[in-house]
């Protein structure tokens, strides 16, 4: 399954042929590597390049939404050794866009990374690819060989005197390596335990050298921004929310998959593109930006547009653009129990509030779900999150806390029902039917 639908295809122009359109000649046929050639041939200055990216108001697609041009400008000019790193460790539940970028258009990511390397003065780069998508890692290595053979990568690229090489590194099952400094540790051949910041990677990154790290989709957008100009890219979206964005829609919709739409597209439009609610059932809740983002009730998200500012105003985060749709067959306690287990399982363990807190959250939600909840448990959960948020080395502790707080805030009565009646508010038979795994009437 690839791209399901799009309003304004940029990143997904190459996806229509699925597995048959990823190679170098296909990419070149659709204008690929033209921007990289232009940068070299026109001897574009690093400052002009970064200024163009700033104009686009491209914001990092990995979750935090930090302006990309600004991030690049933090790289010290004089340092002799610098790196560019791509974050394809896509492991945030609900997110599956970078995998498709790797499968269907790896060269756009390569071109974006080379241009970034030129802009910040790096001579080498690494793409860190989620271990579970090993097939995509292999394809990326093939794409790198093609780019090298064509002279887009390597020494003295296209006779310009500029050299840059790029390599693929795979993970092997650790969500925390998606956190940028955990990722850097992992490339260094260690446990992926995040580093205390500051210093930020722009000053102390891979092997202690200045490093620019961006998400896969961020890099993939770069050639398009140079192609149409920063301002035109910005205007595709809305002010402060430039361009188009990939949304990974999962859960209770008729057509789950990836969608590329302009920033600011109404959620209702996205839902319609995803084929609407499965079985025509009622929308109950949506997690709009990956499992770490606070959940929003259906009626709230229906009034939102899909961009950083609108979702933030509604009390959540656009995050990675992973839209998890839940209908009325979902027991919110059970849903939260699974998410809390994830953070407990994936905490790297070096900060006490996160290591112990994530365990507390999971165990208390678990006991509520299993009919052993106590009246004071909801207060206890909120208190535990108070002791986690903002008190740790990385944001995983916050990511574990947000779901708990938001699920309780918006669906409190369901939790209270569970504690009082020792069972789900949503009938188990109805829950069972919701997944679509069992054919109607089958055992």
């Amino acid at each position, binding site marked *: 399954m690839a791209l399901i639908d799009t309003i304004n295809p940029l990143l997904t122009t190459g996806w229509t042929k699925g597995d048959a359109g990823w190679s170098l000649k296909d990419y070149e046929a659709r204008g690929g590597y033209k921007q990289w050639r232009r940068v070299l041939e026109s001897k574009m200055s690093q400052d002009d390049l970064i200024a163009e990216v700033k104009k686009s108001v491209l914001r990092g697609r990995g979750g935090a939404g930090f302006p990309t041009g600004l991030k690049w400008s933090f790289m010290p000019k004089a340092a002799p050794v610098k790196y560019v790193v791509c974050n394809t460790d896509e492991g945030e539940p609900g*997110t599956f866009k970078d995998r498709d970028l790797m499968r269907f258009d790896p060269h756009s990511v390569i071109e974006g990374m080379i241009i970034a390397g030129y802009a910040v003065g790096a001579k080498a780069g690494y793409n860190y690819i989620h271990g579970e*998508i090993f097939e995509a890692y292999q394809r990326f290595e093939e794409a790198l060989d093609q780019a090298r053979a064509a002279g887009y990568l390597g020494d003295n690229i296209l006779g310009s005197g500029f050299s840059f090489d790029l390599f*693929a590194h*795979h993970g092997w*099952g650790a969500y925390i390596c998606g956190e940028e400094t955990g990722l850097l540790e992992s490339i260094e051949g260690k446990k992926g335990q995040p580093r205390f910041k500051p210093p930020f990677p722009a000053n102390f990154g891979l092997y202690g050298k200045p490093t620019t790290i961006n998400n896969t989709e961020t890099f993939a957008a770069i050639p398009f921004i140079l192609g149409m100009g920063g301002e035109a890219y910005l205007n595709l979206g809305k002010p402060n929310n430039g361009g188009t964005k990939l949304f990974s829609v999962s859960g209770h919709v008729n057509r789950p998959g990836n969608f590329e739409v302009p920033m600011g597209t109404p959620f209702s439009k996205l839902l319609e593109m995803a084929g609407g609610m499965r079985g025509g059932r009622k929308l109950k809740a949506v997690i709009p930006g990956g499992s770490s983002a606070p959940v929003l009730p259906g009626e709230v998200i229906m009034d939102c547009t899909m961009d950083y500012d609108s979702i933030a105003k509604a009390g959540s985060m656009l995050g990675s653009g992973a839209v998890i749709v839940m209908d009325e067959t979902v027991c919110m306690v059970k849903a939260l129990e*699974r998410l809390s287990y994830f953070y407990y399982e994936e905490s790297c363990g070096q900060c006490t509030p996160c290591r112990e807190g994530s365990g507390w959250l999971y165990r208390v939600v678990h006991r509520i779900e299993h009919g052993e909840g106590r009246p004071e448990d909801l207060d206890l959960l909120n208190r535990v999150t108070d002791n986690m948020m903002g008190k740790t080395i990385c944001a995983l502790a916050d990511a574990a806390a947000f779901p708990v707080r938001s699920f309780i805030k918006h669906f409190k009565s369901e939790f209270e029902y569970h504690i009082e009646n020792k069972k789900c508010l949503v009938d188990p038979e109805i829950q069972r039917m*919701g*997944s679509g*795994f069992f054919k109607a009437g089958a055992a």
Partner: protein
Amino acid sequence: MNTPNTMLSPELSPESLKKIDREVAKYPADQKQSAVMAALVIAQDEKGWLPKETIAAVATYLGMAPMAAYEVASFYNMYDLHPVGKYKITVCTNLPCALSGGVHAADYIKQKLGIDFNETTPDGMVTLKEGECMGACGDAPVMLVNNKRMCSFMLPEQIDKLLAECK
């Protein structure tokens, strides 16, 4: 049932070492340790799992302390520090998958194999594991076979087909 095979040589084959050399070449000359993740996967592919002695052999080859390699092997979920069946099937049960049947798929496959998570069938063929998000939620339910092969839309029919292949 697989038992730790003490006869297994911890040393890696020349083919594996050649593959590891290719990984080492990706990193600066003084950063060989960066290749440890890939090297451990190559070793696991050769041996079926990672006995301590093999981890130590990888460490020695890369010029790092055995404990440093063991830390890596035990930190990341997909390294097998114990013997597994010929096929290791990992089922994602995380929320997005669960909404489209991930947990039901896990129940179904458990019942078909007569084993629970973290168990191996008596004939040593299949080990079942519960996995975290594999980044393919649009294809739910998703399963991973032997770490490297992703299987999409695993409804009962597809599960039956997969199990028939596990011979």
